[in-house]
């Protein structure tokens, strides 16, 4: 059947709308990237669009020499690596029994866990609990209180439940216990889903903000997002020079742009890998019983 004129018009407008909207997803970042490589005068005179004007690396040189920013970068890399590893370990260990029919209290535990998605504890009792545990100004406060994400847990559990039963029947005949079934049979079969969930956790740790606001007061322990926030609020601190006394090849506008891009680059770098897996993972999690 040939498309009607109306359908053709719709198709044209649909493409146009989607392309323009998709461009707005990327353009703000490209704009800031262009800003970060532009001269301070060009940046402040609204000349920069998507391409640097009066190209200079001044802002980047200055930002990349900022020891505080690198320190926060290191802290975020640390909590991302350690946090993701611990989160994966404990999510897997929790998901496995919940996927086993012979685990008798399975449905009660699962109910109690899913219930926490609806009944969120208010902020203050959560804050007081973590503080009572002595985690104020400790990087553990950025890892332990969010160790298991319920959504991620459900993804892993759903995947485990879909694995064929015959697998562990034969393993049991060979004398495998549950730990060996999990680590030697299940895990090698679930590389893709593990990659997905690890990336979800890693992005979560990389972007962690609220918990840092609640629990980290010591500036030397600021993770990257908090450092970025403090520099965005007071860019003079980032500039660390008196702008009026001298001719610099950066200003607060270009510095802020460079810092935002600096904090985003790792996400952009893993994004191609990320998006290979996440759609599948996001769907697995939604198919709850």
């Amino acid at each position, binding site marked *: 059947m040939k498309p009607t004129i109306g359908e053709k018009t719709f198709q044209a407008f649909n493409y146009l709308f989607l392309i323009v909207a998709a461009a707005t997803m990327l353009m703000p970042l490209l704009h800031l990237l262009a800003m970060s490589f532009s001269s301070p005068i060009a940046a402040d005179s609204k000349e920069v669009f998507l391409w640097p004007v009066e190209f200079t690396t001044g802002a980047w040189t200055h930002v990349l020499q900022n020891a505080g920013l690198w320190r926060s970068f290191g802290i975020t890399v640390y909590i991302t690596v350690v946090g993701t590893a611990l989160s994966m370990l404990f999510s897997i260990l929790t998901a496995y029994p919940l996927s086993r029919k012979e685990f008798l209290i399975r449905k009660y535990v699962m109910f109690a866990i899913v219930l926490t998605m609806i009944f969120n504890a208010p902020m203050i009792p959560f804050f007081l609990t973590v503080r009572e545990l002595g985690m104020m100004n400790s990087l553990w406060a950025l890892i332990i209180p969010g160790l298991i994400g319920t959504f991620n847990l459900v993804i892993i559990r759903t995947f485990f439940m879909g694995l064929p039963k015959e697998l562990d029947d034969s393993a049991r005949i060979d004398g495998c216990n549950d730990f060996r079934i999990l680590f030697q049979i299940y895990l090698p079969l679930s590389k893709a889903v593990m990659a997905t969930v690890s990336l979800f956790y890693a992005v979560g740790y990389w972007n962690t903000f609220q918990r840092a*606001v609640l629990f980290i007061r010591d500036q030397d322990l600021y993770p990257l997002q908090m450092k970025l926030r403090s520099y965005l609020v007071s860019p003079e601190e980032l500039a660390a020079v008196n702008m009026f006394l001298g001719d610099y090849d950066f200003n607060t506008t270009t510095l802020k742009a460079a810092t935002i891009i600096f904090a985003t680059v790792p996400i952009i770098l893993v994004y191609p890998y990320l998006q290979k897996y996440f759609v599948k993972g996001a769907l697995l999690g939604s198919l709850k019983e």
Partner: protein
Amino acid sequence: MAELSADRTSGSGTKETDRSERPAPRKPGNRYVENVRKHWMLYVMILPGILFYIIFKYIPLAGSVIAFQNFQIFNGIFGSPWVGLDNFKFIFTYDDFYNVLRNTALIALYQLVFGFPAPIILALLFNEVRLMLAKRTLQSLFYLPHFLSWVVVGGVVFELLSNQGFVNAIREWFGYGPILYMQESRFFRTIVVISAIWKEVGWGTIIYLAAISSIDPSQYEAAVVDGANKWKQVIYITLPALFPTILILFLLNIGNFLELGFDQMFNLLTPMTYSVGDIIETYVYRAGVLQGQYSVTTAIGVFQSVIGFTLLWIFNRLARKSEQGLW
């Protein structure tokens, strides 16, 4: 859950043959003891997870009782005096609270009216894209902002809307003077809703696209034979097929109606926009975490949860009348 009962019945069916060496019939209560004994490894595995949920989810939930206390940090929950509903009475006599509640409710309502349908519409538009490569490329772009932090998105928003920012550059190009969007209260809520849609609309389509792809194509073929055009196909086939998904997501959404997301508001708010943008979460942070008014702010949190749950209960009842609810 159905599997569990099936497992139990089949288990009792084989019990006689398997365990015939055990003459005494087991008491039902011992089922659990025996399960622990036989599958103790599963219990060892799940122990850290259960501890996590108890310590970081259920203890704080139980700790909400400080809303009914005059909580003093040195006396703890067990030593602080009980004050009944005094904290709740206090917040309702407090002008700031009404302002914060109004801001929260209004922004939540806008988010629901504009933010909730956005991914549904986008998914329907995606569905009309026939070129697979174009579809995939567009989707990748739309998913990207979901992975950026609100600090980054907030920074981007501030930069784009600043005096020398991109939006004002466009205004100047058309001959208008600059507007300081982030400092003026009249734009704030619009900016909140648009930036939230920008960040999450693409990600939100995933679940709807999956639901669309599971629709039987023969339905559309039959509709075409009956002379239905594209628009009628969407109205009479696609949307009805999406309805259960929409309903469930709506119910999950309404349960957290007043929870707008701390990260977004904290990163977009400035003292100049407190009058329109200070919401429960940012207020609780300042008054509770920073100023130490633990009991009053917990009462606000409890109030917030009660509203959320009441809405969920009401809408779930409504949903059950037409389709199915969450329970």
